[in-house]
């Protein structure tokens, strides 16, 4: 308690010191404002247009900046930080190429509604528009992939803009906000007064739902014989996981959680049917197709979940709870629209929610189906199976790790075989499907959660898209456990070429990949490799015990496919069940 009080006190002292009205530069205003927004870790990369900003960091003990080895690493790390903490992720890059290297990461965050404030430098104001050295119109480039953006024209506006940016990023439907600061603005001095109020006329997200719509939902539950909940990332982002559990406990309605919704609901619960969609469970997909009431809570009916829209949930009355009114009715016609913050909506719903009494037969039917059709694969004693590797990771971390993934087969296997019980334990690029995301996002997740085990599961393809960040794990001793599921091919592309393009395998062979153990060691990170079960368990347990970062390469079967699979353009009940059928 003493130390906690001391921390509190020093925090308050810091706040007082930062809030002092003084004439300082735009760069100092930026750093102070970020600290006042409670930012404890920033990822970035310096350059010409942000020299004043980095100069202000020099010798500043309060400001914690991690130098990545690529701006792409910085933005994915900030994203992982945000997803694993619920706080706003922050990254800084210079103008031109620095800024454009952030584009994929900004789009990744935008698609998955991740709160971020992205700071870029720009050339001196008078040079803007002249094709100056390292000039890029980054506010223009990122307009379709940011929630909002600012080009700061006057240093006087900077405190307000930063405060607004944090507010916009982390309220309503969350998302990345970009602040572009020309070099002369970061150098200019002005009297700093912290801004603590926001008033943005055109921005007022609806948090509390329409009561009449909530009543309609309650009534629909009473009448439903085959009700089903489809919960998504919105539950995690609103912090509504406890309310969701209460809702399910009260109503006893079976629930499926989307890829981004994994962890929003305890996977051990009897009513959980697993993930729906392209690689979802048999039972989740079948239940959507036969439900008479589908309650979407904070999911956006993404095409990977719905399959062919025309045949999606054909029998169901659709309820859609979402903070973003534009999502309601966008893809699926909705009978009961409820606009509001998921947590707030569920609190209100829970006051009236009762057990869905007509659904006993349905519950029993789905439970039996879940037992009959779990995710399954044919194990092997000769070669490592990727699914088995994920099960090993799950078992040895007691299901309590933060897992980040890259994109592809390993991502789906991680989603299928790692069973999450807590929100913000699962960091994956769902909407954009960004390769290169898995490893750097784990660095951010670990920075936000120094005391938790962070496992980053990658393929041998995606790992090579951002491997350089091993450097910052090594020098800062960030103890991320980096798993590489190495099947020597671009597995998901291979799978589609096998199943949909009649075995015409085109450019999927990753021959020429580095020796990942040596690669790790070259950066000063411990490296391990295993190609059979016995070694796999031994090296993995050793990696977990190792106090620092570690890379563990699992050499797995080359031609393994992810099943079940719904081919693009099919309805979700048309599943290819695969070899373990």
């Amino acid at each position, binding site marked *: 308690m003493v130390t906690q009080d001391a921390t509190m006190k020093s925090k308050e002292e810091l706040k007082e010191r930062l809030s002092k009205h003084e004439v300082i530069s735009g760069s100092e205003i930026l750093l102070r404002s970020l600290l006042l927004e409670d930012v404890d870790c920033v990822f970035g990369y310096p350059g010409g247009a942000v020299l004043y900003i980095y100069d202000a960091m020099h010798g500043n003990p309060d400001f914690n900046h991690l130098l990545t080895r690529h701006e792409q690493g910085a933005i994915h790390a900030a994203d992982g930080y945000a997803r694993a903490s619920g706080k706003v992720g922050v990254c800084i890059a210079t103008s031109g190429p620095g800024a454009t290297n952030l584009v994929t990461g900004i789009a990744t965050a935008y698609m998955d509604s991740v709160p971020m404030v992205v700071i870029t430098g720009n050339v001196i104001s008078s040079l803007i528009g002249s094709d100056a050295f390292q000039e890029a119109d980054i506010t223009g480039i990122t307009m379709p992939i940011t929630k909002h953006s600012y080009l700061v024209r006057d240093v006087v506006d900077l405190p307000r803009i930063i405060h607004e940016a944090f507010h916009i990023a982390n309220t309503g439907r969350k998302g990345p906000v970009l602040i572009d600061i020309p070099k002369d603005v970061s150098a200019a001095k002005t009297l700093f007064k912290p801004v603590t109020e926001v008033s943005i006329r*055109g921005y007022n997200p609806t948090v509390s739902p329409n009561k009449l719509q909530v009543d309609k939902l309650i009534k629909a539950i009473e009448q439903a014989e085959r009700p089903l909940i489809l919960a998504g990332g919105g539950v995690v982002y609103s912090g509504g996981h406890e309310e969701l559990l209460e809702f399910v406990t009260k109503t006893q309605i079976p629930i499926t959680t989307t890829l981004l919704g994994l962890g929003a609901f305890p996977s051990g619960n009897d009513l959980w049917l697993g993930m729906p969609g392209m690689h979802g469970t048999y039972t989740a997909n079948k239940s959507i197709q036969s439900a008479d009431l589908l309650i979407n809570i904070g999911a956006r009916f993404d095409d990977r979940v719905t399959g062919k829209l025309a045949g999606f949930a054909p029998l169901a009355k659709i309820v859609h709870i979402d903070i973003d009114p534009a999502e309601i009715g966008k893809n699926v016609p909705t009978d009961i629209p409820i606009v509001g913050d998921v947590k707030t909506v569920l609190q209100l719903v829970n006051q009236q929610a009762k057990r869905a009494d007509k659904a006993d037969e349905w519950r029993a039917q789905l439970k039996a189906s879940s037992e009959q059709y779990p995710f399954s694969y044919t194990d092997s004693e000769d070669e490592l199976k990727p699914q088995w590797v994920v099960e090993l990771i799950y078992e040895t971390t007691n299901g309590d790790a933060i897992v980040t993934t890259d994109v592809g087969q390993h991502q789906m296997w991680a989603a299928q075989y790692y069973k999450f019980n807590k929100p913000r334990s699962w960091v994956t690029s769902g909407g954009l499907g960004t390769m290169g995301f898995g490893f750097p996002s784990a660095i951010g997740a670990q920075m936000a959660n120094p005391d938790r085990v962070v496992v980053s599961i990658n393929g041998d393809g995606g790992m090579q898209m951002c491997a350089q960040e091993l450097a910052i794990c090594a020098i800062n001793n960030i103890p991320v456990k980096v798993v590489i599921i190495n099947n020597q091919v671009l597995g998901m592309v291979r799978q589609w070429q096998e199943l949909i393009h009649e075995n015409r395998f085109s450019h999927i062979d990753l021959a020429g990949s580095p020796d990942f153990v040596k690669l790790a060691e070259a950066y000063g990170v411990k490296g391990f490799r295993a190609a059979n079960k016995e070694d796999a368990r031994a090296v993995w347990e050793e990696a977990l015990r190792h106090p620092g970062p570690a890379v563990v390469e699992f050499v797995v079967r080359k031609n393994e496919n992810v099943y079940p699979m719904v081919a693009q353009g099919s309805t979700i009940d048309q599943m290819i069940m695969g070899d373990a059928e």
Partner: protein
Amino acid sequence: MKKHTIAVIVNDQPGVLQRVSGLFGRRGFNIESITVGSSEEAGLSRMVIVTSGDDHTLEQVTKQLYKLIDVIKVIDLSSNPMVARELALIKVNAEPAARPEILGVVETFRAAVVDIGTHSLIVQVVGDTEKIDAMVELLKPYGIRELSRTGVTALNRGSAK
């Protein structure tokens, strides 16, 4: 495909036109015309956009526009009685012999001749889109050299808002 006329009240900020037009472009919404100018309130501009699509498209357009921070209000003007006007300047071939005939057309349309050259004149016409279309059709036989239309600006009538 129904035509819709919508007014979008936006902050008078650099880049706001790009935000709005970019949104239409990337979401596949059609813009038939767009006009921007100041509104009754300082600091706010009024855009009037003519778009086409079914009701579902219009609903999405409206909702997506509201997601832009610089958008203050979106009004579906065409759902209520409205006055919609555009202005066109038409430079038409006009040898002295043809002038009386052209002036006859201009007068009938309550349009105006705003410039007379040796071989051409500029006709200014104000009205709804159909009126201007008709005027253009009638002047075509004389040979239209240049045509510039402002696009529609509009307000709802009377107390309708």
